[in-house]
């Protein structure tokens, strides 16, 4: 998605104003001249300034459409794959605790591989091996606690 500069500029400037407004509400410490609001306010001012500059340069190209969606070329399965990369991980966050990392990981990976056109034989070997290996490396060797979920007690 490409956004024309003459739309992007005002959006950034507005965001800058919002930041300044929010920073304004932060509590101050008595007797201290510069406090928690200083950096956010400075950042907000810069955003307003930069937003203005981007708007100015955008006004020189008035023929440009406000929104380009031309980068979304993905069709068919590949389009689903692009969505699954994001949505699948989102779903993974939900299933992570109850189902455990190994199963969630294998499900996500198998789905992704299938959508990207991998052969079935490759999927059923690579996905479980890779995910279980990662699980072992992280929770076994590196002591990062990954939930085993339904496989609790089954995996070493």
């Amino acid at each position, binding site marked *: 998605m490409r956004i024309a500069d003459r739309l992007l500029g005002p959006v950034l400037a507005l965001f800058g104003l919002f930041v300044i407004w929010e920073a304004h509400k932060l509590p101050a*410490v*008595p*007797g201290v001249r510069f406090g928690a609001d200083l950096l956010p306010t400075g950042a907000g001012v810069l955003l307003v300034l930069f937003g203005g500059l981007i708007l100015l340069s955008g006004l020189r190209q008035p023929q440009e459409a406000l929104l380009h969606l031309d980068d979304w070329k993905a069709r068919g399965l590949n389009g689903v794959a692009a969505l699954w990369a994001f949505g699948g991980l989102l779903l993974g966050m939900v299933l992570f605790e109850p189902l455990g990392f190994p199963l969630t990981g294998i499900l996500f990976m198998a789905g992704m591989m299938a959508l990207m056109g991998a052969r079935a034989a490759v999927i059923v070997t690579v996905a479980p091996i890779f995910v279980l290996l990662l699980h072992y490396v992280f*929770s076994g060797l590196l*002591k*990062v*606690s990954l939930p085993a979920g339904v496989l*609790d*007690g089954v995996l070493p």
Partner: protein
Amino acid sequence: MIHEGMSRGRRALCLAGIALAATAGPALADWPEKAVTVIVPWSAGGGTDATARAVASELEEKFGQPFNVVNRTGGGGLVGHSAIAQAPADGYTLGVITIESTMFQAQGLPGVTPADYTYIGRFNADPIAINIAADAGYDDAEGLIETVRADPGAVAASGANRGGLSHLAWIGLLDKLDIDPAAATWVASDGSAPALQQLASGAIDVVSTSPAEAQSLVDAGEARTVALISSERSALYPDLPTTTEIFGTDWSPLPFRGLAAPKGVPEDIVGKVETALKEITEDPDFQAFMASRGFSVAYQDAATFEATVTSSSEGLAAAMTSAGLAQ
């Protein structure tokens, strides 16, 4: 809840155990059956992390299951302390808590209060010390306090964020000495390392932190540790006077490190860990490790630890209110 049935006697315990086993849950008697997570609210490399890892590796040896240390950092310990309190109360998540856990409530921060834990035991407590620059115009705590009193604003102190324990210990002392806490500027810093750097560079005058952390700078002749903000001398630094001896104040904020679990963890698990922790603190190897880092070993059992936390919490809340830090 299972833990409520526990105190009614062994019969209830057995029944609960059978019921649990029937529902494919872990049988309590066999805890731990799998890896236990130990949450540390402070980052890897700090003192709390080092002691927690030492305790965890000893627990691992005793129970034959991994005790994995997990650092949940951020928010001045708030994130990790809440994570411990909110973990499932099945005994497979424990945590190392520090004195900050007793301060969030008074600071007006949501998430966790001292009542949200099952206390297991304390293994360490070290007082905070007053450290001054070697080239200061005074060489003891009286001189420092006289300067603060005589010339408000001349002395800048640091050691932690505003509202952190280091800050509280310092202004609490000033408060007990009837000095306006604003008479010494507090420079908010992100922990004691940046504060010590500031002290060495001559930008500030006082750092309130544990004597162990200032030790190297003291050895380098850049800083001097003049007193412990405490009413008791430390076994590791027997020559350091305390502020109670010097000024006759009654102010002893004692940072602690202890094991805790979420509220509602079955009592027999708490008992097992409590006993193990007692044995660990009596182990000469562990004591040698702690001494080598300048940490004292100060065991308290679950009940005493809980009492300590409660009284510390009340004392700190009062100090924060009088210093205008409470919300």
